[in-house]
């Protein structure tokens, strides 16, 4: 049983993560945002049945279910090319450097596209959100060993794609 205050706290803590998680899987921004809202709506509607202890993993589980539905509706391959971006911290970057960055961005997107779903979600949770292996394992309800294994698989794919540079 959770009330509105619990729900708000839950939303504040996990909404960003959940929409990112869905995005890691489907590489669609708007659909991910909509789906994340549905996930929280589903939790709200079931609020009398859920307990605050295991809610973190539940959020990810509901999200995973919606993602499966999504793929059933539109069977498309996730493509990260259009979302990748680069912020330059230095004020001026030479065209030469810019070209280099562009190439690197392409390679990075390629690497993400090549990763298996399981590898990519773990890799991106770790890299984009700086979550620890322990935290990732708890959220996805898998063992830390599995996280490590997927991570090393993901890094291998990354290396293969980036080494051409």
């Amino acid at each position, binding site marked *: 049983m959770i*009330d*509105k205050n619990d*729900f*708000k706290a839950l*939303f*504040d803590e996990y*909404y*960003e993560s959940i*929409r*990112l998680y869905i*995005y890691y899987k489907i590489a669609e*921004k*708007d659909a991910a*945002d909509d789906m994340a*809202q549905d996930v*929280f*709506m589903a939790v*709200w*509607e079931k609020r009398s049945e859920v307990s605050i202890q295991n809610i973190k993993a539940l959020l990810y589980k509901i999200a995973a279910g919606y993602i499966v539905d999504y793929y059933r509706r539109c069977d498309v391959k996730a493509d*990260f090319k259009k*979302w*990748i*971006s*680069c*912020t*330059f*911290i230095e004020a001026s970057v030479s065209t030469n450097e810019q070209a*280099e*960055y562009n190439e*690197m*961005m392409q390679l*990075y*997107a390629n690497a*993400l596209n090549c990763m298996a779903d399981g590898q990519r979600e773990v890799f*991106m949770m770790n890299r*984009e959100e700086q979550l620890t292996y322990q935290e990732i394992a708890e959220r996805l309800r898998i063992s830390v060993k599995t996280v490590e294994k997927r991570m090393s698989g993901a890094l291998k794919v*990354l290396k293969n794609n*980036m*080494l051409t*540079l």
Partner: protein
Amino acid sequence: MKRLDNKITAVPHWDKTADQIWNERFAVLTDEDGKEGNDGQTSSSKIVSLKGRTRYILSVAAAILVIITTTAFIYSKDINAVSGEIVSVHLPDGSIAQLSTGTSISYRPMLWIFSPCVTMSGEAYFTGSHAEGFSVKTKQGEIEVLGTSFNSRTYDDKFVVTCIEGKVKVKNLRSSVELTENMESTIINGKLKAEYVSDSESAVGWTKGVFSFYNKPLNDVLKDVARYYDVKIEKPEGIDTLRYTGKFSRQKSAEEVLTIIGQPYGLTFKICK
């Protein structure tokens, strides 16, 4: 090999922050949703025997009461706006409802004091004091008026409420939302969504005799035109993704209007007879 720089990210730039989403969709949820109070069941009844005259008077009074209440329930005002006209309706509380083409509303004048309630389908613009507040019922949901002016449209499966001024509350079976100025709620398939709109005035353009569209799907624009002139429009293929912005008078003929709309896309629309 160069190291992958930390500045490169695959995370997109979200249109809305988590806070904005909370305010638009989740802030309105209340703990009480769906829970029904259970009271008023405790009054015990007493059997009283009555004699002669008193009994006669009481039964007559009861009969009259029954007749009055039945008429109150049966007597309802139904107003329909037929093709090409806008009808203004004065509601018992002094507020005004303007009905667009093809809209119908009904209410029970004699019951207004007890349950101020209007049933509608189509599109209507409500303005006025609404001091006591009434409710508008549609197939897809209900509006609770909290003193304001607002536009309500129900076409196809969509139920859209645009708040121009003040405050209204929109609810369906599952959820409810309070709208303030420049907010718009949409119910599709029982799902309620609310957002800020930059063009709330264009929602009521029809009351001023103009068509006013702001970044609207071309399909919806054509539907509006077809409804207003009561014609069928033949649509060319591949217009599903186009969006239209424009403003023009409703005095023109349907053909003229379709030429205006088609021009920027190089399209011509035909009216099927």
